């Protein structure tokens, strides 16, 4: 039996029954990484020795384990989440040699569970991109077809989960960066409600939009990982002070009477026909399962996308101001004074897409343009929130495709920034409004590439969307029908 094919809850079951021990799991994953990483290129840093050592320690400590224990379960971490003593690069030349002096709150929580970090995963530089092609280090390949992108920006996380190189992973989502790569790689990805998971120690891209979330093989694993990372943190003032929940209890495998709204604007122009067909089939499945599905209107996608790129770039231009070559990060060798040190370090340390977004962000915040762009974008944000509120007065869940297309070929969008931005059309509204959304696989297209279904919930209604996702998954059984084939 290949342990790397199992979900985390299946591994927990086997550990509980003493069929396997903790170090078997880590060893299995390390040999899987040895086998597949050369093709997939998902990792920036692999922590082989550290993981093996920790797994032996954990095994010794946990002979009598509790049922739900996560001790000894490996995990992969997106490389913009700070891990003490380990490189955190954001896949940027700017942070190529940066060793975190502290742990992000989510990493503290993972360590408290005695989980084992297998490595740091590749991403678009500073999480800016939708294909992971903007990584300074390498291009991660899609395990379903190695000539296609894994999506982005959490492309390394999604590809590593799909390729069974980690049982699950953490990603971050500012405009779709968990959900879109999850959709492209045929795995599950959840962006929690803004404030549910602490952002302390996540390298900031756009602070009012960023959230950390799980990328997993199935919905139950997603609930298990959310249980670990959710919760109030005084180190993040935007973190919500709400009651701790057990999200696995929400998985009832029952959607009878659940009201699902399908916004017609998300199935219209620009959505690939095969993607649309899979979504319509999923809708039929939900109806058969007893959900009440209705067409609705949510005519905000284009406004939300425009407002997203204004707000996200404005916040990024401010957040990335800290990278100046003084206390940490890349410093140019070529300068005569402090201003040149700043400018040359930043110009040599950042990649083109990051510079493009800093320039756009600086532009929309500059005198004379603030009112025309930034202020308007924030008013659009109010509009988007209001439109979602209207929908959630009528429906429990909003159903859309996660992405207008399946995973695309390398190079097909990377030279056209605007076209790359359009890849986010179905996902950004969710970040603008702050609500949670999950992407689950709902079939494949005629080339065998996975299609993602997005379920959006109201603020802090993770339980509702997790149950809706779980119920579909139990019926559809995607993982039994389809597997990545590492096609060349």
């Amino acid at each position, binding site marked *: 039996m290949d342990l790397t094919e199992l979900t985390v809850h299946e591994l927990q079951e086997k550990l509980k029954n003493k069929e396997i021990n903790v170090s078997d799991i880590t060893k299995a994953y390390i040999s899987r990484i040895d086998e597949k990483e050369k093709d997939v290129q998902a990792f920036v840093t692999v922590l082989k020795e550290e993981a093996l050592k920790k797994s032996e320690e954990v095994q010794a400590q946990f002979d009598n384990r509790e049922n739900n224990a996560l001790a000894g379960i490996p995990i992969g971490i997106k490389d913009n989440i700070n891990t003490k003593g380990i490189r955190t690069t954001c896949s940027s030349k700017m942070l190529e040699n940066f060793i975190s*002096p502290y742990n992000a709150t989510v990493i503290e929580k993972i360590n408290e569970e005695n989980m084992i970090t297998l490595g740091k995963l590749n991403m678009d530089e500073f999480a800016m991109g939708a294909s992971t092609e903007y990584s300074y280090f390498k291009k991660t390949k899609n395990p379903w077809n190695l000539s296609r992108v894994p999506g982005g920006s959490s492309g390394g996380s999604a590809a590593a989960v799909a390729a069974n190189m980690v049982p699950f992973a953490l990603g971050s989502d500012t405009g779709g960066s968990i959900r879109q790569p999850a959709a492209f790689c045929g795995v599950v990805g959840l962006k929690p409600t803004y404030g549910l998971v602490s952002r302390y120690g996540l390298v900031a891209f756009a602070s009012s939009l960023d959230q950390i979330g799980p990328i997993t093989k199935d919905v139950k694993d997603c609930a298990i990982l959310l249980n670990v990372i959710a919760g109030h943190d005084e180190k993040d003032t935007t973190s919500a002070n709400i009651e701790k929940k057990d999200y696995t209890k929400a998985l009832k495998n029952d959607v009878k009477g659940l009201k699902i709204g399908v916004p017609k604007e998300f199935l219209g122009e620009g959505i690939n026909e095969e993607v649309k067909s899979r979504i319509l089939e999923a809708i039929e499945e939900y109806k058969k399962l007893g959900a009440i599905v209705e067409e609705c209107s949510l005519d905000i996608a284009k*406004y939300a996308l425009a407002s997203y790129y204004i707000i996200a770039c404005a916040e990024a231009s401010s957040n990335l101001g800290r990278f100046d070559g003084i*206390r940490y990060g890349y410093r140019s060798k070529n300068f005569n004074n*402090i201003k040149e040190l700043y400018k040359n370090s930043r110009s040599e340390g950042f990649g083109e897409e990051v510079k493009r977004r800093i320039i756009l962000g600086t*532009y929309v915040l500059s005198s004379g343009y603030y009112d*025309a762009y930034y202020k308007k974008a924030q008013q659009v944000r109010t509009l988007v929130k209001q439109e979602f509120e209207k929908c959630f007065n009528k429906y429990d869940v909003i159903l859309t495709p996660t992405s207008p297309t399946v995973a695309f070929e390398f190079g097909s969008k990377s030279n056209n920034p605007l076209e790359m*931005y359009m890849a986010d059309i179905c996902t950004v509204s969710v970040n603008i409004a702050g609500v949670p959304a999950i992407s689950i696989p709902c079939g494949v297209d005629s080339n065998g590439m996975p299609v993602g279904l997005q379920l959006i919930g109201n603020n802090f209604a993770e339980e509702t969307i997790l149950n809706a996702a779980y119920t579909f998954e139990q019926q559809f059984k995607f993982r039994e029908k389809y597997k990545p084939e590492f096609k060349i």
Partner: protein
Amino acid sequence: MQVSKEEILHIANLANLNIKEEEIEKYKTNLEEILNFANIVNNAPIDGLNETITANDSYNVFRKDEVKKFEDREALLQNAPEKERRMFKIPKVM
């Protein structure tokens, strides 16, 4: 939406970035295209709406201003591009 070469250079300077002569045209075209698209926000039905600054309604979260010591000075200094006697080294400012 037209952006002039001078504007691009001005914005790049504000952002502490250099743009090479041969890159100006590319950044200018990219910025114009993106701004043309972003102009949609001007057609949105937003008259009279307030601005939303963040995704949730939290506002002024207070806590006591207590000093918490971070002891691991070495962990911070190991990332310094240049250091001397346990301090960050930078070029002359004044």
